[in-house]
């Protein structure tokens, strides 16, 4: 077979020819070519992402990378569609084998998965580069060192005394007063040495105080260490053995038994560390912080921030942390996004391949019109959330009835076609809407979201099951129902 396809090795061309001669359904889906080009594109993108000079300390530029990749993926999708629409076994009334529709859909789904996947490469490479440049514990230790050395160098400027507060604890307060320290106390104790608080405030203060001294059962002294952490920790130690020193730890290490350090050596070590985390690039994070000016009321913390240019260092730590740990959380939603984007596009392609062009676009138009009319109806009827789900289920039931009526018709009509397209597209989402409706109604039994134990976990589990059920339902019904509907409808004569 002669081919003008660029960058394809002979084995791909041989595979292409083999599929053309032996498996037309697979060949027309062009999934093999999509996978090959997606891998090729991913390889180039990966190399480029590694080659292009970027600094992990700088603001992430993955938005630009993802936009570019998404744009190229969109172009790839269009090119794929152009090639895909050239040959169609179904519309040519070719040999109709069992499971062809299921196979076709899965091939489209896999193809779109491969097209969307490269969008995750730039952030992944960025994470790899950040991980290579900075170790997890290294970051924590460096942050601790910076705080420690600043405390050593700035000992004289620092506040050494702990802030103390004395409280008498009562069961309840008779006359509540919200004072300037942002706490609720008994009004009569305002401006007194001992402030009267209730047990709820006591428990809260106890968890937050750095030190607590019990005088007797109802009298307590709370002490708070001055702030010695000049850098924001950004939960850098969330996934590390080493932990970020808090102010108490720094107090114990430096202030409590202060030993005069070798200033020049410590200063040099601090400068080296600050240099390690200084970035010369403009940062969106610090762009609106006036780091160079310390106001008249600026305290020692502000002055130190300004002296060591710590806003930039904070920005670097933030950027590095964002890049290093982005895959530690939120992966579920990333995977869902990937799967749902692929599902939606593969469903659209599947429907387009089984219906007429006119009916396909009329289906989209119908969806838009229904959305507008339903929006107007809901707006004028002071709707509740469940009304939306009732409407969706009602529409689906109506479309389903119209769609199955095609078996009894003698000719093909556009309305039947639209109904078939609609029920095919939305089947994967119906269990989700049904579950949403159930929980919207059920949650009304619990005032102010006072759910019993395990309720939210059970609800979340049900949502996951509903999502899976939608996909499974689509796969199960595609052959016995949707294919039969499309086959019956598309081949019928026109009026």
């Amino acid at each position, binding site marked *: *077979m*002669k081919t003008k396809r660029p960058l394809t090795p002979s084995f791909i061309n041989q595979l292409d020819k083999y599929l*053309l*001669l*032996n*498996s*037309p359904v697979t*060949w*027309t889906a062009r999934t093999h070519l999509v996978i090959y080009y997606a891998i090729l594109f991913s390889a180039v993108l990966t190399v480029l992402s590694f080659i292009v000079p970027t600094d992990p300390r700088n603001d992430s530029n993955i938005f630009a990378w993802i936009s570019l990749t998404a744009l190229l993926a969109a172009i790839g999708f269009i090119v794929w569609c152009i090639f895909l629409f*050239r*040959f169609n*076994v179904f519309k*040519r*009334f*070719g*040999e*109709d084998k069992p499971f062809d529709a299921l196979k076709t859909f899965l091939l489209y789904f896999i193809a779109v998965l491969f097209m969307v996947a490269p969008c995750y490469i730039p952030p992944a490479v960025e994470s790899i580069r950040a991980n290579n440049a900075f170790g997890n514990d290294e970051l924590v230790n460096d942050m601790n060192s910076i705080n420690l050395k600043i405390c050593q160098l700035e000992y004289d400027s620092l506040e050494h005394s702990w802030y103390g507060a004395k409280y008498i604890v009562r069961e309840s307060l008779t006359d509540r007063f919200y004072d300037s320290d942002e706490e609720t106390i008994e009004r009569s104790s305002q401006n007194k040495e001992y402030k009267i608080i209730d047990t709820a405030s006591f428990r809260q203060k106890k968890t937050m105080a750095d030190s607590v001294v019990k005088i007797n059962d109802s009298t307590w002294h709370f002490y708070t260490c001055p702030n010695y952490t000049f850098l924001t920790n950004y939960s850098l130690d969330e996934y590390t053995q080493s932990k970020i020193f808090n102010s108490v730890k720094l107090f114990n290490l430096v202030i409590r038994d202060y030993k005069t350090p070798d200033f020049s050596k410590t200063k040099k070590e601090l400068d080296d560390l600050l240099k390690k985390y200084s970035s010369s690039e403009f940062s969106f994070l610090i762009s609106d912080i006036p780091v160079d000016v310390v106001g008249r009321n600026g305290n020692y913390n502000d002055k130190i921030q300004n002296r060591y240019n710590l806003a930039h260092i904070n920005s670097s730590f933030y950027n590095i942390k964002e890049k290093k740990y982005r895959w530690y959380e939120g992966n579920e939603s990333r995977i869902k996004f990937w799967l749902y984007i692929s599902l939606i596009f593969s469903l659209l392609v599947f429907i387009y391949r089984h219906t007429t062009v006119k009916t396909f676009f009329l289906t989209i138009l119908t969806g838009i019109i229904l959305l507008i009319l339903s929006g107007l109806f809901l707006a004028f009827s002071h709707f509740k959330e469940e009304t939306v789900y009732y409407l969706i289920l009602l529409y689906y039931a109506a479309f389903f009835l119209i769609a199955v009526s095609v078996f009894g018709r*003698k*000719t093909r009509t556009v309305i039947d076609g639209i109904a078939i397209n609609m029920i095919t597209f939305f089947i994967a989402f119906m269990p989700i809407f049904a579950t949403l409706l159930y929980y919207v109604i059920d949650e009304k039994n619990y005032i102010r979201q006072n759910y019993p134990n395990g309720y939210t976990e059970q609800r979340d589990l049900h949502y996951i099951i509903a999502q899976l059920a939608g996909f499974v339902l689509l796969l199960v019904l595609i052959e016995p129902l949707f294919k039969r509907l499309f*086959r*019956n409808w*598309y*081949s*019928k*004569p*026109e*009026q």
Partner: protein
Amino acid sequence: MNPSIHAEVNEHLRHKDYSLVLRRMLDLSYDTGNLSIIREATAWSRQWSSSINSQQGNEPGEQFFTDINQLLEKADAALKREEQNHIMLLDAVNISKTYSKGNFKLNPVSISIQNGDILGVVGENGNGKTTLLRCLAGQLYPDNGMVHYSLLSNPDYYNIKNYVAFIPQRIPRWYGMLKDNLHFSASIAGMHGETNETMVEFMLERLNLTQYADLNWNQISSGYRTRFELARILLQKPQLLILDEPLANLDIKAQQTILTDLRYMTAWRNHPMGIVLSSQQLHEVEKIAHSVMMIKNGSCIHHSFTNDDALKGNAVEVETTTDKETLQRVFAESNTAIQFNGGFYTITSESISAQQIIELLVRNNVTVTYFRDITHSTKRYF
């Protein structure tokens, strides 16, 4: 051996019509249904076709004739000796169609087609030919009457459209390489692997398309597009082939070639089929069709199979430089009607034959530039 093809091949060899020999040898190989013979015949045809087609009049070498004899022997051994039965393919009874928009109405028409049959549907533009064909092909639903596809039991329309192939007048464009399209068609018809390759090569060679196989749609003329579409449809092996104005885009020679091929193809023992074709090339269609149906204003006004004798008398078309008065004088003694149809005269007579009409013209020194006997032609209804 297939005696008719064997005799035909000998006849063509005698007249040194080697191009037809190639085509009929390919037909013979196809009739055997044996892939290796088909492959051998295709390769043999490809070997000789370029030299035969380029050197008209030149004698091919001795090897050509040796190969023919060898192929004939192999085909003879492989050919099944079964009588070809005529099987009913389609039976349409009183089908009629009215469009919801517009005034056109197709009045009740009945048609039956067996395999091996060619039915020509002729008529002027806008008289219902395409509507009738689309009803037969399952593309339009008739308002009344019924179409029975005899070889299908309880078919849905997907089966029907697999059974009946419809080639519209405006062939939808193909995308990609032409050969890939043919492989695809063979593949969706269940021909896979080597069978697919062999059959595509055979069909390309049979329709003389081999040299255009690697081109795309934009690179071939409309005549070749029709032939490629025909090749594609034939690879899908329909039982009934319906062609709407297949001759519209073809030159005279291509029309003859296609029509001859269609006639041969209906008789393929390996895959006999029925053909319905509409055309305005009346005489060409009449040459190959087993029956011709004339449609006028939505009604079938003549079906040569059923009412051959509906019109009495003989009729000829004559083109001459002589004026009408002279002609009337020539035929004054015979009971003859002369009608001028803009360019030529139609002379009808119940008393004298077409042969006698031309004799009279020649005897009276009338200059005749064109003469055609249309006694049995539907042309008389135009």
